[in-house]
């Protein structure tokens, strides 16, 4: 009897430990930072632009908090700016993953963060109510237009990054071949048979499902909201026929024989370059090195580089911090 009991206890303790471990594993599930291989350099952009950032002891008096929205590309950008500003001598810290653009927008307006990177297209559609087709396709025009609006509410945006990002309808290459799809318009007559997965907000957004319905006149078999970190999982699992992806996704270049995106021939998904949003007050307090450092450090951010940085975090599971550090180092901004 007694022996039985002890055995049982051991077995149960083991079971409990297993369950706990499972729970912990689940906790780390989506964004664990295993084996950051930060020593490995970001290849492909050895053409260092602008040279190393010079630390200015004057800047040590100024504290800056750099924010970001809550997905990997944003967190990488937030880290790049933070580390670059620190290299320039500022007391810079990051406050990443603020949430949606509404939250980030409020945070910079209230002064909770000094600034954060935003896509010019998102700013124009989400903050200033432009229809997707009204967003200028030229990066500088979009920036000027957004900056005009930002100035009205006491904010300012710096010049845009070289790379741009947009939403896109993505699918498996096999699905595209089966239905002979190349553009979003090709979905006409087929979309009723296909399920679409996107972020919870996608359903109502004009630059997402609402726009696909309104501007393309498409009806889908079903729409399912999912966390954006699952946007490739649902395609791979065969659950989603179509999934809303980002044009900067590393999977699109790394696995181009597997995933494809449809050409947005009626411009529902405006492309946006990243502009750094801040306040004139912070600009004044921080001095000329603030804008200079940010513009300098984003010069190397071409589409290929951004995709590679996204890959480090999303596929290789590096931390955004490590990916940002690797970028700054290999591009020669910091030694």
């Amino acid at each position, binding site marked *: 009897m007694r022996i039985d009991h002890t055995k049982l206890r051991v077995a149960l303790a083991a079971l409990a430990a297993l369950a*706990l471990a499972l*729970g912990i594993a689940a906790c*780390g599930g989506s964004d664990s930072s295993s084996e950051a291989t930060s020593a490995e350099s970001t290849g492909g952009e050895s053409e260092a632009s602008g040279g190393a950032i010079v630390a200015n002891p004057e800047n040590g008096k100024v504290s800056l908090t750099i924010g970001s929205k809550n997905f990997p590309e944003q967190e990488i950008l937030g880290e790049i700016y933070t580390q670059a500003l620190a290299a320039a001598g500022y007391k810079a810290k990051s406050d990443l993953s603020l949430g949606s653009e509404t939250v980030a927008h409020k945070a910079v307006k209230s002064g909770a963060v000094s600034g954060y990177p935003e896509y010019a297209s998102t700013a124009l559609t989400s903050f200033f109510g432009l229809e997707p087709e009204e967003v200028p396709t030229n990066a500088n025009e979009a920036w000027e237009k957004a900056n005009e609006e930002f100035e009205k509410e006491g904010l300012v945006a710096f010049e845009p990054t070289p790379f741009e990002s947009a939403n896109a309808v993505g699918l498996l290459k096999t699905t595209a071949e089966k239905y002979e799809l190349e553009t979003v318009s090709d979905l006409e007559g087929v979309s009723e048979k296909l399920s679409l997965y996107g972020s919870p907000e996608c359903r109502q957004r004009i630059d997402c499902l609402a726009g696909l319905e309104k501007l393309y006149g498409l009806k889908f078999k079903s729409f399912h*909201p999912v*966390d954006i970190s699952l946007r490739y999982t*649902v395609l791979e699992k065969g659950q989603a026929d179509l999934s809303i992806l980002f044009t900067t996704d590393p999977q699109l270049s790394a696995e181009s024989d597997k995933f494809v995106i449809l050409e947005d021939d009626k411009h529902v998904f405006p492309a946006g370059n990243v502009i750094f949003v801040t306040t004139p007050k912070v600009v004044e307090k921080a001095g000329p090195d603030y804008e200079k450092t940010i513009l300098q450090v984003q010069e190397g951010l071409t589409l290929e580089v951004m995709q590679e940085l996204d890959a480090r975090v999303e596929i290789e599971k590096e931390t955004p911090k490590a990916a940002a550090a690797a970028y700054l180092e290999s591009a020669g901004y910091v030694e």
Partner: protein
Amino acid sequence: MSLTTPLFASFGGAIEFIFSPQASNVTGGKTVGGIDQVIELTFDQLEVTVLALLLAIVIALPAGLYFGHRGKGELLAIGLGNTGRAIPELGLIALMAAVIGVGLFNLTVALAILGIPPILVNTFVGVREVDRSTVEAARGMGMTQFEVIRKVEAPMAVTSIFTGIRTAAIGIVATATIAPLAGVATLGEFILGENVYGTNGVVAGAIVVALLALALEFSLAGLQRLLTSKGLKLRRT
């Protein structure tokens, strides 16, 4: 201080959001919210909640009754209860999404896992706490093991069993709010979609989820009264 004013402002806005559709910046002119959408999403949330709760009961109730009756597995019940609380639900859903995909089935299972520990533990404890002499008397009357559970132990443990079910229900209905991250639209759509629904939508979503949890709690309390045997009610009063 500065926080309270916008909070009250958005409370009023949230009530408005619940009853009449509002304009939104990002929808291309389409209005959002309003009573129709609120009711639709409330039913979606209720659906996944009820399914998960039933699944949890089907698994945990017989197990709790059995282990309680046999007087064994105390460590298992308590251990499960504690580890159950340690499992992060969002992580569990993400893990299951990677293994079996997203959707109603995944969510039902993930939420049921959240509901099992409190039902199991409370059923176990409830049955264990039934007066041993009553159980012996039942045996003496010639009842089979199954009859002892069904006619004596389970009825006398109803209060404790329902404590477990009510705890599970509240946990499940509240957590079903994150379902829109795993393929199923629920009231969480308002809370997760601030860009679309605005702060009013976020607060409105929270209010409706809270009301739904209260409604569920009261219905289960009513059900508990119905299922409590007359003899027990008399003894309590």
